[in-house]
């Protein structure tokens, strides 16, 4: 599903975020990327939907070499990858429902079908009752769940989360992880970056530990 080989990423200014990272994630797998802040977790995840491009090495997602993808092809790649951002990136000028349905507008889904899918996604994260609220009225954990609903509304085969539990209390964080695990159980490949070792230990899943831009 996702395969990194000897991936390095150097930012303009000389900062080396990744130094030769290689790993691969099988379809249907759930894996955690861990490491301290600044270890390169965010950079690693951003390479998958081509938000960043590798300086060297290759990033293969679903058989596509993402690093060499043409600019015009990037949106279509992103539609097949659900991304949950650390800061959610919700739009506060519209309702929860309108946030979740947004990705379906890009692909021109029929309105009724799109609405049905958006409600199904909200239902899966337990927020169907809040569809008319503005995201600002929701708690941090609820906003993160809205972000998850938006990430899965296109039914992607791959779901990635960049520190989705950061800034949440333990109970909300556990709930968020449960939602991710739930999607993994129905076959979605899931990759989550987190620095919260205690939280993920109990799942006994694969860990990719990043340290100083390398897999430790």
């Amino acid at each position, binding site marked *: 599903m996702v395969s990194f080989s000897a991936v390095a990423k150097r930012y303009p200014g000389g900062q080396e975020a990744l130094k030769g990272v290689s790993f691969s994630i099988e379809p249907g797998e759930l894996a955690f990327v861990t490491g301290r802040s600044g270890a390169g977790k965010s950079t690693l995840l*951003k390479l998958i*939907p081509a*938000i*960043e491009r590798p300086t060297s090495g290759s990033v293969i997602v679903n058989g596509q070499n993402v690093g060499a993808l043409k600019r*015009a092809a990037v*949106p*279509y*790649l*992103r*539609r097949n990858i659900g*991304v949950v*951002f650390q800061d959610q*990136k*919700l*739009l*506060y*000028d519209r309702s929860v429902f309108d946030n979740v349905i*947004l*990705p379906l*507008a*890009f*692909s*021109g*889904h*029929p*309105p009724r079908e799109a609405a049905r899918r958006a409600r199904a996604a909200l239902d899966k994260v337990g927020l169907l009752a809040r569809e008319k609220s503005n995201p600002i009225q929701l708690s941090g954990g609820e906003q993160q769940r809205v972000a998850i609903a*938006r*990430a899965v509304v*296109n039914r992607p085969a791959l779901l990635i989360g960049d520190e989705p539990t950061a800034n949440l209390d333990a109970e909300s964080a556990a709930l968020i992880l449960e939602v991710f695990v739930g999607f993994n159980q129905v076959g979605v490949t899931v990759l989550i970056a987190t620095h919260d070792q205690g939280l993920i230990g109990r799942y006994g899943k694969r860990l990719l530990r990043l340290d100083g831009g390398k897999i430790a």
Partner: protein
Amino acid sequence: MSPWLRQHRRALGLALRRLGILNALVIGVALSLPAGGYAILENLRGVAGRFALDTQMSLFLQPGAKRADAEALGKALRADRRIAKVRFVPREEALKELSSVQGLPEVIAALGHNPLPDAYVVTAVVPARGEAIEKLSSDLAKLPGVAHVQADAAWARRLAALASIGRLAIWLLSTLLGAGLVAVTFNTIRLQILTQRAEIEVSKLIGATDAFIRRPFYYLGLLQGVGGGLVALGIVWAGLGLLNREVRLLAESYGSGFRFGFLGAGDGFAVVLFAGLLGLLGAQLSVSRHLREIEPV
């Protein structure tokens, strides 16, 4: 409905919601100047053109000329190969014609006698150039018994020359204000892009194509231009209406039914189309310049 069509409908809907009446009004006021000027010029050109094409001229005989002399002159005119048609207007007939004009019978009655001379109305062979007409009229003026030759084409040509200067001025004005329209649209779209910055950034992150993001802005530019064009037509229409109320009084006092006609359907359509395309151009310039700056990381 195809996804493509659905996306266009969505973009159009968004653009309609974001469309500012004030912007369309500003554009409309600016465009109404050249559009109105063009309408007035077209009217004048119509008048001038009617006479300029006319190869007709009037020969007035000396007052009190004998009918026999007039007939001799008529023979000479008919012999001239540059002349296609000759019509004799006896002084009695001219008087009768004049009497039919409102207000004049009283004046004529007050004179007590017929002040009008006999006249010939001559039509030159077409096609006759401007210079040929001048030559003919000066030749005819030299014929014995002719007091005055009036070539209607002469003043019409002067009017047409004036009108062509006016047309040039309107083209200059259109170019300047067209550039202004592009600039206004450019700026509106820039502000709109800044307002939508968060949405654009998030949309790019989760799979929107550039075309999807640009489309509402293109529509906004197009609609704003079209709106401005329609406002301009409205202003011209209202302006000519007001003008015509005065023109009617003036024209009637000359016994004329002249009115400023509104722009033709083709011209009106051209104004709206032109404004729309310039709006689209402004949007395109703005979008290509400002959307690139919003690249999510």
